[in-house]
């Protein structure tokens, strides 16, 4: 009898402690955002409608659909569905086509007029150059986000498949 009471009380005490712990030590949103952000491809291309990967991660954590990332594609949707315990949904084509191969920007240097517009547009500072001087892309740093293409007034930037 004493044994049963003792064990029962132990169960209750530990159960209570566990209950408390699960409430007090809940994963905060910021750790969730970090985890989501780590799965995103970090191209910072903004095709999802957010100004970068981290803002999109925050939006996903807040409940936004997780099918808006063209560089991540279907693979990312599956990973995020598992991570967030959500349904696997089809890719949202309103945000562009799925990119299967990693891209890099390439400046045709003869045609560059040195306007620095692409430098300001680059989200990862992967373009070097100065006013009226030729610009070029640091291949190792380029994420292939295409953000430099639109601002170029002479259309001298190509996107190539990373070789």
């Amino acid at each position: 009898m004493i044994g049963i009471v003792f064990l029962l009380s132990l169960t209750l005490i530990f159960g209570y402690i566990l209950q408390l712990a699960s409430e007090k030590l809940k994963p905060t949103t910021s750790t969730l955002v970090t985890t989501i952000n780590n799965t995103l491809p970090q191209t910072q291309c903004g095709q999802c409608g957010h100004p970068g990967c981290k803002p999109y991660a925050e939006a996903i954590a807040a409940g936004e659909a997780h099918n808006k990332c063209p560089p991540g594609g279907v693979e990312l949707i599956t990973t995020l569905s598992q991570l967030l315990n959500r349904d696997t949904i089809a890719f949202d084509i309103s945000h562009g086509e799925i990119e299967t191969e990693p891209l890099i920007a390439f400046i045709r240097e003869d045609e560059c007029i040195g306007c620095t517009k692409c430098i300001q547009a680059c989200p990862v500072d992967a373009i070097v150059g100065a006013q009226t001087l030729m610009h070029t892309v640091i291949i190792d740093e380029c994420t292939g986000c295409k953000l430099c293409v639109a601002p170029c007034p002479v259309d001298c930037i190509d996107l190539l498949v990373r070789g």
Partner: protein
Amino acid sequence: MSAVPLLKQLKPLTGGVFINSHKSVTAETAYQFIPTPPQLIYHLHNKYLQYLPKVVVGEQIQAQQVIATALTETQAVSSNLHAALSGQVIEITQQRIIIAVSSEPDLSPQNYAFDDYKPALLDHETSSHNLLEREQAALQKIRQAGIIGLGGAGFPSASKLNRHLHTLVVNGVECEPYITADAALMVAEPGNILLGVIELLKIYPQLNSIYIAIEDNKPQSIKAIQTALAQLSLKTQYAQCVHKIQLTAIKTVYPAGGERQLIEQLTGRALKIRQPASDIGIACLNIASIAAIGQALAFGRPLTHRVVTLTGNALTQPGNYYLPIGTSFGVALTAAGLNSQKLHQVINGGGLMGQAVDMNKLDSIGVEATTHCIIAATATEFAKPNERPCIQCDACVPVCPEHLLPQKLFQTNDYSLACIECRACEVVCPSYIPLVDYFTAAKQQDRTQFIKQQRAEQAKKRYDARKQRLAQIARKQAAVAVTIQQSTAIKPNQSKQPTLRQLKTQVNKSKNLLRQAQAAYLQLQKNQASTAESLQQAQHRVETSQFKVDQAEQALSKASQAK
């Protein structure tokens, strides 16, 4: 002539398979020659090196001239490519250099007999400083001669050598099916191999054991080396060297000739995963590399030719051929009597680890220093039944020379860095599963994933850094704006538009003033004592107040209309 005793191998290989070696067609006969090839094609990339052209299109070049150089990070020469024959450069691309040959080849490799060798160079009493200089010079010579691992791996030979070596393994264990190029070299040029060994002993006198390892199914090669050693030991100045050389027959099993396997069999020491042999003071060099080192150090001759096994059922004259490096596969196979009707596929390399070559490009692929075998196979020769599901028989486990569990790796879609990709597991697999293909695919996938992750990490860092920087700039600009505002705020801003509320209070204020002025005027009128002058003043005040009220009301109505 006293026979040199054969040493027994220390530790037989655990794992490995016995396979049909397909070597009888080409085995152990001295090599043959081919007619001068019309073109030489030199590839500028291999697994470890990237060569930069040193010649220009149209340039006339001599045999043995350097045509391309690979540099180390410190811009020192790590390897050279030499033209095997003289001719004219007709094409240079990023991938290759093509030379149109104009001269007859000088095809007379001599087996060295040590008749005119200078024994003074074997002097062990040279000071250590001298030795160091001599070593550096010798390594430089080896690099400049372009000597890389001729057993197929292509690792620069000089990188395997250092002053802490105590054991040299001369690898004559050609365990892969079809290949007999090293055996042919041993039969034809045993003296050149020993010359290489002695040249290495000259720069590394601290080497205390030298193993020459040969498979026990090659009695001709063993005999040739044995005879050469016996002859050498008759010359007193070499007795000390010969004493260190141990000729070892290795049990024929695949893959006994792998560097890691061979070292374990000879010395009993197992290398850790990816550990280079020089870490434990052992250098393992292919027998052809040793011969090439001998030529480079003794005569300054660069690596321009090599023995290649041309075999397969689609050839009418299979055998070992002494080819200038750069000879196209097409030319080489034609010289060996290619029957193009029977030809189904061409394999660059041995029967197990070789890679199939694009059949349409046979004339644009040149023999490289690492090409030891070309197989012209018929349709039936490498036909493999279709892959079937794994039955978990574990047959692949005991044959793995690296003691891995290939079946487990396959089921978990995993790979191991320890896998030497020898394909022994595939040979025994009753379900014909191309296990190594799966492992390499998994490895590749993992690698791309890793690179992707690293890139993402980098991009994240840079994105955050940029955001921080922009925020900092914005903060600075805001601070500057505030100071400007403060400096201008000393003078009241006239042009500033008053708000509606301010205008309303203005109206109310002026109305109040008007009321006060009117009250004062009325009081003055009632008071008899007031003078006309003061009355006039009060009237004037009322009028101006009235004017101000009108003005304020006008401004208010204007402002409210504008809004």
